[in-house]
Structure formats: C-alpha cells, structure tokens
C-alpha cells in the first residue's frame, strides 16, 4: 500500500470519471492509495481503532455512493477524502463526549512517525516537509490548529482552553491554515510521491 500518490489533477479527474462510471477497480485503487491516510487520520482524531475502522468504511461507502460530489477543481482527492474522514471522526468524538464523561485527551505534542511504510525514504521526506511547515507556524496558530484538528475541539472550546477570545481563536485557525496552504502549495510538494 503506497503512502500517498502524488497530487495530480489528471489522475484525480480520471479516478472521478471511473468512479462515476461504476468501475470497481477505481474504488480498489482508491483504497490502496488512501486507505492508510484515512485510517491514520481517523485513528489520530478518535484514538479508537474500532471507530477508525468504521470511519474508513463510511468514507469509502460515501465515495462509491456519490462520486460526482467530488469536485477536482475545488481540491485534490486527498483533500476530499480527508474532509469526509475528518468530519466523521470528529462526529464520533462529539457523540462519545455527549454520552459519557470522556477522559481529557491531551493535545498532540509529538508527531509520531507512520508505521508500516513501504517507501520509507519518500514518506519520511514527505512527512518532514509537512512537519517542518507546521513547526514553522507561529506557536499560537500551531496549538490552536492542532487542538481543533486532532483534538476535535470546536473553536469555542479552543478559545476556552487557551483562555483567548473566540474571535482570536477563529482568526488563529484561519491564519494557521492559510499559512500552511501557502507553504505547502503544489509547487513544493507535487514531486513527492
């Protein structure tokens, strides 16, 4: 299973067409290319392997049900899958919070390396690039983004936990992502497979 395919609009467009046409091979390819990505994200956010497996299933069911919802012009396949996965993982966390007292989960403080990597050199290089982009964010933006993304907090919870006004929390999340977008945008990263 590859870590991630290189970002390519043509490939995304082709996959979309094949999925829409009902080509099952395209769905299998999608799983092989992005299964680890979706599972890993869901695992990081939910902290629960069973929940992560459910998220993976829900995402691929959704993709196969409504492939025409993927808009290659508005983002990559990775971004679409990431959004589908992240939302479901966050929903799981919030449902858990609502039904029972949850142990407070610490915000991520370390970026643990991916496991079972086939192409170690490439994936570590990729992870390094992303990691260094994130480390390059101003500390306050980094913490806020991490809390929201991996910690499944709402911006209000972020504001509360960091003792900042809600407007500031919103702003740090937006600026943090914008900064990441600028640094990681295609030119730098297309070459990394």
């Amino acid at each position, binding site marked *: 299973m590859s870590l991630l395919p290189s970002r390519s*609009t043509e490939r995304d*467009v082709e996959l979309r067409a094949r999925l*829409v046409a*009902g080509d*099952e091979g395209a*769905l*299998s390819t999608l*799983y092989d290319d992005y*299964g*680890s*990505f979706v*599972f*890993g*994200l869901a*695992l*990081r956010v939910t902290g629960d*392997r069973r929940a992560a*497996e459910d998220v*993976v*299933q829900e995402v*691929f*069911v959704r*993709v196969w*049900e409504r492939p*025409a*919802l993927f*808009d*290659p*012009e*508005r*983002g*990559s396949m*990775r*971004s679409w899958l*990431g*959004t589908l*996965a*992240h939302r479901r993982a*966050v929903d799981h966390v919030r449902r858990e919070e609502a039904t029972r007292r949850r142990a407070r989960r610490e915000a991520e403080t370390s*970026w643990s390396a991916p*496991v079972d*990597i086939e192409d170690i050199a490439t994936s570590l290089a990729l992870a390094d690039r*992303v*990691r260094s982009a*994130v480390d390059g964010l101003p500390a306050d933006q980094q913490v806020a*983004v991490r809390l*929201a*993304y991996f910690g499944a907090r*709402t*911006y209000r919870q972020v504001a509360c936990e960091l003792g900042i006004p809600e*407007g500031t929390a*919103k*702003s740090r*999340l*937006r*600026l943090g*992502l*914008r900064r*990441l*977008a600028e640094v990681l945008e295609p030119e730098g990263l297309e070459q990394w497979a």
Partner: protein
Amino acid sequence: MGVIDHDTAAELLGAYALHACEDDEATLIATHVEGCETCDIELARLREAASWLATLGNSRPPDGLRETALGAARERRSSEPPGTPASLLTDHLDRLDAILDTISGDEWRAVTRTGWTVHEFVAHLLAGASLINVELGAVDADPFDAGTEWEARTVTVLAQEADHDPPDTVAAWRRQAHLLRQSVDALTPEDLRREIPWFGATAPIGDVVVTHGFELWVHTEDVRLALGRGRQRPADRHLAVMAELAARLLSLALHGRGSRIRLVLTGGGGGTWPLPLDGDGASDAVLTADVVDFCTLIGGRLHPADLAHSAQGDETIVADALRTAATFAFT
C-alpha cells in the same frame, strides 16, 4: 433559518474547514459558501491545507478492513444502484405506459404546451422508439418505412397515425417499447459505446438510449401538464444520468471557446462539472441551478431567461453557456 453575512462567514472558514464550528453555524456557513465564490475557493484551499496535516497520521489499517470497507460500499450501491442508460429508459417507458392507461376520449385531443396533441406525442415517441429499434437491429424492417431522417420520419409517422384511433397508436407504441426494453436490456458496456448513425452524424448507443429516455420524460411531462395530472420528478439516479449527458454535450459545445465554466447542479442527482471536461485550469465562471430545472431547459421546456440560477464570475460566459444549453432541445 437566519442568514450569515460574508465577513462573519469568512472569519469562520478556518474553523469550518477544521470541523470546529457549532452545528447551526456550520449550516449557515455551508449555505453562504454555496453562493459565494470567494469563500468557496478559500474554503477549498483551507481544506487542502488541513488534509496535509492529516498525512502526518498515516497508519496501516488492519488487513481485513479492505474487504469489509469495499464490500460495504458495493452492497450500498447495489441496493440503490446507480442509474444506467437501460434503467433510465425502462423506467421512463414504464412511466409513460402507466399514464397511457388513464387517458380517455377527449383527452387524446388535448393540446400540450408545444402545440401537439396528446395523441400526436404518442405518435412522435412511436417514431423515435421504432427508429432506435431499427438502428439496434431489433426489427427486421422499419414498420413505418419512414426513413431515418428525424424530422421527415416524425412527419410521416404522425400522418399515418392521424388515421388511427389513439388506442391503436398506443398499441403500436407498446409493441415498439417492448422490443426496445428487450434490446436495451441485452446491451453490454461495449455495445453502449458502439456508435450508430444518429441525426446525420453518429452517436454512441448509450447516448442514444439516454436521449430517448430524456425525451420520454419531457413528453410524458407535456402530456401530464396538458391533462392536469401534475409533474413527476425523475428518480435521482436517472437525473444523474441525464445531467451527466447534458454536461458532456455542453462540454463538447463549449470546446475551443477558450473559457472555462463550472456547472453546479443542485438537488438529488445533481453534481459538479468543470467544463470543458477534458481541460483543466481555473474556471472563469460558475453556473448554479437546480438539476431538474437545468434538464428542463436542455429539454427545451424552459427558456434561459426563466431559469432560476446563480452566476458567479464572468456573467457573459454564463449567459453564453445557458444559450448554448438551450440549443440542445432534443425535443
């Protein structure tokens, strides 16, 4: 439900991209983004950035998950199977069939919105169905000997059927519909791609079938409206098939104009198509409309000026695309 102003929505885009909003806010933002290209683009960018964060978490799932996940997907899609040209045609043949049984006496002479009577519409569809049967080799000889040129054929068949009672025309149509169902059921994916003579050029059989299914819908609707029976929305999965064909035709027609437009069709069966389909690059404009309305326009039953839609970006490109789409009226 309230509305959110642009600045408030824009401030929340980061949180929204991170799924960090309250539910009610999320709904308001989603609605705003649908109508605001600036926010739509920024949101896409922020989501892209968020997805990079996700790459740090790559983790190999358990081996069994692959089959579980793919199996669940296949099962879900097979219980609500996507529309196919064959299923679209069959469904729309069935719908017309059902209403034909309920028409009697003077109703056959009721005049529809295009000026034809109900009886004439059935004759028109008879001309179409029998032509496809000829092209597919489902009949040895053309039952009307009316040629393959569309306009002339319709005139000939209508003239012949004018001498028959409506029930006889209906019976003739049912015979052709039965043959059509059989031949279309037997078509393989390769068959669907095979080109046959069509309207002076050639077209893949799949497109011919979808076009006839489209036509059946438009004309059945003409009949329903003429008789006061109310509209009948096509199934979502069949709107999806018709919309996909419409997008492809529009893509072909817009080729070489140098501009790009994003077609966003909303409602069940809708989707998004960056046009022309085979190019890439940012769109110069976005056209958003309800999928049924857009198909109604393609079917020649809605004037571009009457289509409820939103346009973003270069409005002349949107107007041009609408005018172009209106010229496809198959009917």
